[in-house]
Structure formats: C-alpha cells, structure tokens
C-alpha cells in the first residue's frame, strides 16, 4: 500500500481499513512462513502464541534441558575458591540453615559466572562489599519485621498512623529524592526491599513496608491494586509473583506503558536468576533477601531503568538496526552462519550489536528471538563496560525464549577499532574455547571482506539525518515495521539536542559511549560504597534535554492512544503550540511524526507520503528484512 504513487495524497492516510483481526491474521501468516527475525508483541496477543513459542524450545528440549538444570551441576563443576569461601564465611555468620546455605551457594554460581566478566580487582571489591552488606542486611531483617508489624498493625488491618510517625519513612526521603521524575522499586511479596532506582533501599525500608501492606490489604478483599493517581503523578503496581514492582512516574506515560517497562525490569531479574530459581527461592524462604543474589547485577537494573526512559524502542517493542548496505549485512550474516554451523556447538543465536543497534542476527531454525529478550541482551552489553576489554563467558536466561534455564553467552567486541559486540548464545556450557576460536575466525573473515570498516563507518555516521531524508516539513519521526518488530528514527537534531551534549542522541557513538562509561564507573564505585554501608548506589538518570523529553513524552502519549485497550484510534493528528504531530497505526506499520509548527495539514499529509516512500526505498538498508539461520 505504500507504493501507491498517485497521491491525491490526502486520501492515503485515512484509507486504511484493515481491522485488527487482519493484523493478527497477517502476522500469523508470516509467522508460519518462518521468515521472521523476532516474535513480535502483536503475535503475542494472538492466542496461538504460546504454542509457537513453546514448540521450538520443546523440540530442541534435549540440548536445552541438560543445561537448564544448572544448580546441581554447577555447584560441582566450577571452582572459584575465593568467591566460594567468601560466601561460606558470610553465611556462617548469618547462621542460616544448611539448606539455605546450599541454595545460596548454588545460586551464587550464577553470579560467579557473570562476575568472571569483571577484572580481578573489581571482583574482589565487589565480593568484600557483599559480605559486609550481607551482614548489615541480616541486621536489617529485624528492623523490617518490626516496621512491617507496625504498618500492618497487629490484626493485619492498616494502621495508618504508623506510616507518618515512622521516622524511617523519612530516613531516605529528601527533597532531591522526591524531585526525581521516575522511581522504580522492587520488593518481595513479604515486603523485603530488593531495589530502588533512587536512594538507598535500606533507608526506604518503611516505604517498602507500606507498599507491601497496600498490596496485601487490597489482596485480602480478593482484588489487586493497580495504580494510584495524584495530579500528574502516577503510581503503578505490577504484581508478578514472587515479586512486587512499583513505578512512580511524573512523565505522563500510560499505565500500560509503565507496566511494559516494569515487565522489562522483571525480565531482567529473571534473566539473572531464571524464573525457576526465582520461584524456588521464595518457595523455600518467603523472607529471602534477594539482594544477596542480585548483588553485582544491580548495574543491569540501573542501566535498564535508564535505557527504558531514554530509548523509545522499549515502549515500541521494537529493535533498531544499524543502517548497512544489504550486501555488507548479508556478508556478515553469511560469515557468522557459515563459521558457526561448522562448529556444531549448539549455538542458538548469534547477535552482532553496535551502539545498541542490531547489525545481524542469525538464529537456529525454529528458534525465534523476542524483541524483549533482545533488549535484555542489549542491556546486558550496554551495562557492562568491562566487556570491552575481555572475552566474556556468562550464563544468561532469556525469559521469553526459555524462562526456566540458562543459555550461555560468549560476548566479545570485534576489535579495538570496531566497537561492535558479538554475542553467541549456546546451550552447550563447555563451548567457550570453541566459540572463542570461532569468533576470531569470524573477525578475520569480516576483515577480509572489509565489513569492519563498513560497520565503523555506519556507527560514526549518524545516518540518516533529516536533511538526508529531505522532507523539510518533518522534524523527526519514528517508523516501526510491525511485521519484523524493527523501527528506525533519524538522527536527532536541534531543537531536540543541545548543541554540544550529544548524550541523548542514540546515534551518536561518542556521546553514548562516554555516558555509559560514566555510568559504569559510578556503578562500580557505588557498589563499594554500598558495601561500606554509607551511600546508596546512584546512577545518574539519563540526561535527556527538556525538548527531547517533550518529544518522547508526546510520542508515548500518541502511542497510548493508538494502543488504548478500550478506545483505540488508528490515526491522530495533533496541533499544539510548538509542533504538529501525527500518529498512524496500520496493520503493517506504526508511524510517529513531528512536523514544523506552522505546517498546513495538506502539506503534512504530502510530507508523510514522501516519508513513506523514502522508507520504502531505504528499507533494505535500515531494516533487516530477512532472517538468516544456521
């Protein structure tokens, strides 16, 4: 439909008549043809989704299963003496039961593997830190109990007077904390603090207690709490046993959007522990302090919270691709696929990322990558600065692919010059050396075909700019191809970025690298301060310019109208004091456009048709249209 060139242009936009059923139907077709890169969220909505998701894992369950019972096996085969003894000592001091200790040991294996990534000195610091903070946590358990009793009152009814009188509530709460635009809290169902985006969760113990009390109070009447609104602030509760996730936002997102964001956060935790372990821990000990297991991976949560705010791909449920000529991309994919298929190392996915954008994804036949999983991987890479200096071998759970077990990730950057990151995911836990070798072979071949240069060029290129797209009425846009769950956006330009600060520009290599470097550094140092029990870990929230925040907020607003559950609209044209906006949802694409403020509607519509033609023309470059397999 994009190709209809006789543009009585205005008639183009409103003409699409396809209903939602058709969307689903068309997606199903695509799905069955097996040509897709991802399983999209649209498909998820369709009822047949579970079968589709399950069938690939089910079929190849034999290699997966072996690996997805990691606890027992892992306890035996890896040996990292120092880390182990640390944990043991610490546990003795806590006088936990034997069973708990065993559980703890098993679970820390998972963490050990991740922490291989960090350099030795960092690792020591982290571990020492954990011991100390674990001790403190155990002391805090009692405090928590006491506050919980206070808050809940003896009879389990809400005792509100305690909420205000409890000095603890004010302990971690000050003006700066209150002024934050967005909070994310994670707690266990029994009210144990697990994570707070801002501030030290230890000092917010009472607040966590109140949240838990509210949840269980409403639960007692057979209901479940969803959200609280006060003016421009919204508090969203996301109950996902065994965890409670809470987001407080002043940014004007819809409840559904915030729930999606919290789903990502939840998936991030699952990806560290696997769902199976997460459930087991709390089955065995409702009161378990999950921070013990997550320590070391806080950086992932902080980074994810930042990404979710500053990158529209999370709300769109789509992935951005690094623009590349089809021939180059094909060469890359073929190289990866050929090298790995010879290897027979049960590689499920091979993913090449650059600047958080997808360069290539090669998958095993019948295995699909959900965009949500890919975002977890992107966050994993993005949050870990140390990956740049070494090859990493780490277990990783992809919640949508298989929430019960780990796959193993071989992560490495292509070269010092070419900061693209190759992630090889396998079910075979002994493949490190084989994959490491394969990676070198891949890099060599890519060098021979001049692919590295092409990637570097594209990473630095900031392509496409709006002047290249050449639709003068349009300032910025997002285009999502719904069938392949990919989207593209042009490079940000004024007024949405402040001249020198290039941080918010997702395309800008240097800006991003720097900012994330800073974040990582602060994460490490904050972990050690946390160990001392003083400061809370502080990740700087993404420094979006006000204008960019406004741009994204408006896109999100429009997105929520297009995807509203009860009253969805298919087209929205919005005029305000600063810009004109358009949101358009069809069966094949989603389009969000920002126009110059004084544009006439007829001109805007012409511009959109021009824009769509441009996208069509460049489609092969900005999207990955095919999905190579091993």
């Amino acid at each position, binding site marked *: 439909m994009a190709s209809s060139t006789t543009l009585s242009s*205005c*008639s*183009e*936009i*409103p*003409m699409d*008549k396809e*209903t*939602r059923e058709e969307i689903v139907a068309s997606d199903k077709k695509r799905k069955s043809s097996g040509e897709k890169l991802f399983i999209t969220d649209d498909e998820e909505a369709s009822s047949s989704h579970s079968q589709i998701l399950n069938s690939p894992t089910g079929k190849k369950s034999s290699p997966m299963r072996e690996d997805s019972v990691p606890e027992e096996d892992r306890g035996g085969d890896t040996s990292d003496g120092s880390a182990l003894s640390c944990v043991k000592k610490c546990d003795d001091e806590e006088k936990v039961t034997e069973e708990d200790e065993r559980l703890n040991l098993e679970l820390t294996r998972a963490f050990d593997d991740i922490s291989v990534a960090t350099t030795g000195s960092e690792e020591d610091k982290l571990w020492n830190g954990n011991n100390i903070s674990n001790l403190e946590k155990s002391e805090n358990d009692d405090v928590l109990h006491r506050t919980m009793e206070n808050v809940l009152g003896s009879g389990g*009814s*809400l005792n*509100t007077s305690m*909420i*205000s009188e409890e000095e603890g*509530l004010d302990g971690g*709460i000050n003006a700066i904390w*209150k002024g934050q635009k967005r909070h994310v809290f994670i707690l266990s169902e029994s009210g144990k603090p697990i994570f707070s985006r801002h501030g030290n969760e230890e000092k917010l113990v009472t*607040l966590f207690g*109140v*949240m838990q*009390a*509210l949840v269980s*109070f*409403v639960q007692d009447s*057979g*209901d*479940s*709490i*969803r*959200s*609280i*609104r*006060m*003016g*421009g*602030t919204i*508090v969203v509760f996301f109950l996902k046993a065994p965890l409670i996730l809470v987001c*407080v936002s*002043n940014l*004007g997102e819809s*409840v559904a959007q915030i729930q999606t964001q919290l789903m990502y956060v939840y998936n991030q935790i699952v990806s560290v522990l696997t769902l199976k372990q997460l459930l087991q821990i709390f089955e065995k000990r409702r009161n378990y302090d999950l921070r013990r297991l997550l320590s070391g991976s806080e950086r992932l949560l902080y980074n994810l919270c930042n990404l979710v705010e500053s990158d529209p791909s999370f709300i769109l449920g789509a992935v951005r691709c690094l623009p590349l000529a089809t021939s180059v991309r094909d060469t890359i994919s073929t190289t990866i696929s050929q090298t790995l298929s010879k290897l027979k190392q049960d590689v499920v996915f091979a993913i090449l990322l650059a600047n958080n954008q997808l360069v290539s994804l090669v998958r095993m036949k019948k295995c699909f990558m959900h965009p949500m999983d890919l975002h977890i991987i992107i966050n994993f890479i993005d949050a870990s600065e140390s990956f740049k200096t070494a090859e990493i071998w780490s277990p990783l759970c992809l919640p949508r692919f298989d929430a019960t077990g780990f796959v193993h990730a071989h992560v490495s950057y292509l070269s010092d010059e070419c900061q693209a990151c190759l992630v090889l995911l396998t079910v075979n836990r002994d493949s490190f050396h084989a994959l490491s070798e394969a990676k070198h072979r891949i890099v060599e071949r890519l060098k021979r075909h001049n692919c590295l240069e092409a990637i570097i060029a594209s990473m630095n290129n900031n392509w496409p700019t709006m002047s290249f797209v050449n639709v003068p009425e349009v300032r910025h846009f997002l285009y999502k191809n719904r069938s392949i769950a990919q989207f593209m956006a042009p490079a940000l330009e004024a007024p949405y970025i402040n001249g020198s600060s290039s941080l918010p520009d997702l395309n800008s290599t240097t800006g991003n690298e720097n900012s994330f470097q800073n974040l990582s550094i602060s994460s490490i140092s904050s972990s050690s301060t946390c160990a001392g029990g003083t400061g809370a870990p502080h990740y700087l929230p993404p420094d979006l310019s006000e204008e960019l925040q406004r741009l994204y907020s408006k896109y999100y*607003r429009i997105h929520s*109208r297009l995807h*509203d*559950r*009860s*009253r*969805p*609209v*298919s*087209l*929205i*044209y*919005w*005029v*305000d*004091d600063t810009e004109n906006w358009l949101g358009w949802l069809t069966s094949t694409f989603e389009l969000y456009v920002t126009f110059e403020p004084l544009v006439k*509607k*007829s001109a805007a*519509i012409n511009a959109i048709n021009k824009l769509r033609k441009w996208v069509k023309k460049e489609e092969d470059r900005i999207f990955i249209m095919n999905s190579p397999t091993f």
Partner: protein
Amino acid sequence: MEANGQNTTRSAQIKELYVFNSKFGNDTDNEMGKVLYCYPGDTTHPDTQLKEIGLCEAIVKFAQTFNSKEPCDSLHTLKLRHVYYQPEDGYWFILVLSVPSVVKSSPDGVECVEYLDDQIQDTVFHAILKRLYEKFVLLNDKFETMVQEIGLVELRTRLKKCYDIWVQRIDVNQSGIADIFRGLQFLPLSRDAFLRVQCFINHLVVSWPQIKHVVLLQREKLIWSGVDQSHIQLLYDYLVNDLLSQHFLSGVDKQSTFGVIMKRESHLTLGSSSSSTLTQFQPPGSITNSRSQSLNASQSEDDDNASFITASSSHTINGQKMSSKFHMLIYKAEQTYLTILIPGSSTFDRQYISKIEGFLNLNFTSIARDLSKVYRLSSGSGLSNGMDNQSGVKYIYFNNLNFAEKICPGYQCDLEAYKLLTDLKQDLSKMNENGEIITKMVSDNWLVAKVSNKREFYAIFNHKNSNLLEIDEEMRKLTEDHLRNIFFQE
C-alpha cells in the same frame, strides 16, 4: 446486566459513597465517629466502612510521599475504582465504583473475567463528586461551619437527607465530558430585547434595594445573571436540574397565572465571593409564580473581585467571610423564570412579597411574553437540531470564561466516542492553552477536539469514508455555521 451470547457484561455501578473526617472518632471506642455519611448506609457493615476509610487514609499518605503538591485523585484496583476528593481540609469524599467487566466463557466452560478499567474516567467522577459537595453547600453550609454551628449530628442528618437521593440520580454509564463542563445555556437576544431586560432589572434592583441578585431564565436558558461568576454555574445547575425541571419547566402550562408557587425555608450557601455587582450576560422576561426560599449564600461583602475562588480554597478563612443567608423568590410568567435573592438578614414578610409581586405584575409579564417568542425563534433555527443529526455530526462547545455551553442532542449516542472526548480533553489540557486533535477511531468515526482562547470545541463526525483534510474542512464549516463570532486559533 445483559447476556450477550457467551459473554456477559456487567456495567459500572456506584458501590459506595463515603464522607468522612479522621479528626472525629479518634478514640478507639468510637471509631465510627469519623464516618459522616455512607451510602448505602443500611447495608454497609461498619467494618467495611472503616476499612474503606482506612485504605483511603493510607493511600493519601503514601501518595504524599511522591507528590505533596497535588491531592490524591484515585485508586485503581482490578475490580474497583476509588475516587477521592477533599473539598475542605480533612473532609474527604470516597466514591467506590465497580469496574465494568465482561465474563467470557470459552467452549470448554472456563470463565474468564475481563475488567474494563478504562471505561471509568477519573476526571468525570471527580467532577461529579465536586458537584455533590457544592450542591450540598449551596443548600446548607460548609461542613466545618455546620459542625461548629449546629453540630455533627445535624450535619450527618442533612448529608443523609441530601445524598441518599442525589447519589441514586447519578447515571454512571452515561457520564462523560458534559458532567465536567456543567455549562450554562444562554438565550441569545437582540440588542433591543436585551436592553429592555436590562432596564427592567435595573428598575427592579433600584426600586427594591433589598434585592441583591437577580437571575433570569427563559425555560432552561439563561438570560441574565446577577450572581457572581463562580456561583452561577452551581445556582443554574440547581435551578434548572433540581427545582425547575421537576415542577416547572415541563409541568406548568404556559398560560398559568401569577401566584406563589412554593415557599420554603432552606439554606443555600454560595461559596464565598458573590457580591452585588451584576455580571450580566444577556436579557430577561416575566413572572407568574413566586417562590420564596431562604438561600443562605455565604457572601463576602468585601471582596468583589475574589471571584473564581473555589469553595474549597476559601473555607479555611475564619470569620472574615460573612455568610449571609438569602431568601430566594422565583416568579414565573410564560416560560420565563425570575429568581430574586434577598439577604436573609433583611426583614422579609408576606406583605413585602406582595409589594414585589405587584411591581412584577406590571413590569415582568410583558417582557416574558416577548421573550417566549424569541425563544421559539432561536430554538427553531437551532444549532443542533435537524440538519446536524442528518449530517452525522455531534458537537459540544464550552467556554471557560462565561461557562457557556452548546450541546447538540444525542451527543451520547456513541458512548465510546463520547468517552474518548474526555480522554482528548485530558490530553489537550496537559499541554498548553491552544491545541487541536483530530483522530480517527477504529470504528471509523472521526473526532475533533479543539481548545483555543479558553474555549473548547468537540465534534464527533460519523463520516466513514472521509480523510483528514475533508474532516478538517467539515470542521471549518461547522464552526463557521454555529460559532461564527468565536475566534479559534488555527
């Protein structure tokens, strides 16, 4: 409840309404003391009441942790919606609504309930609560004042008397953007006619200095208001929807003669800022019947320009705001209603009323006769009737400056579209003073929402095959036809 194939839908309902203040009933023996009103009072167990209030208190405190500037509006749970409203310090309303749901049963008998949270719009029910409160204050007094003057017991009695009836009148499922506006309908008059009305009213006020305010209505349309801006909306709503609609507007035949229709003592409190300055919009008519009521309009003598202070913000001020009571007289001639407010402090007896009636008999009836002609003309050429319905356009116009409202009948016919208007209003209000949204629903209806210069215009176009530009053009025509004199920023 309607059975729909395999799906059963349950519509939204008012489950409970509470008015409470935590400062009462602090001691453990008398916890129920904090409950000032509960609907349905007979069937709601005290424990349930206390639980609900406890939850509200907890939520409000919790919410303050994150936003201490704005009050807590609502709590959404899967099955219920709790809307909160605090009109006076410490006095809270809680409206508990059941979320509409669809029970879907699959062929193998598994039932799954889907709750349609979005069907209930917070802003609408917030407005409804506000109206409930304001109307109570109009007829009685502010909560705190009443507690001080006549005591808690009496306050409880009166709350029960009013709200037991009012709550049942709320139509949960039809509520929407019109409940937020609560606008006034004006009767447009020619310059001559308006001057006549103005002369008459000035004459009236000068001859009878006790008369503080005059409000003139032609059927449900407002011609003249001498009541302060901030109160006319409320008084108008009360006159048209409570008093006149039941007994007068429809029932009394046009030719009925002069006489006292009703005389009763009650207390109307009009917030805090009315003054004797006449805010005039448009002109008047004549009398037949008279009604006397004592209105207790709390009126501050000294702040003429304090208008737009809402009741909730002014109530904390102690003795400063004098609340003088008003007697209300309503006279009817033809279909014209003359409402006169006389301060309750002035002596006021049958004899006095007779004198006024004598005056009105001479002056009011003829004006009323002329006005009824105007009304017939204006409603004949109506904004909305006939042609709009055929062309499939429904619209609502509201002016925030004078509360003027134009609504075309049948605007609720497509409930989904009607509710979407409230969403769009919210989207627009978040931003700036001016804005426009044109949107196409999945059902192929087009909606336009436009805000400019404090004026709001909403239209629903039932034009299936139109495109954006055609709708834009239609919109231009529509505003030209009906709102010629109103400037809309493009």
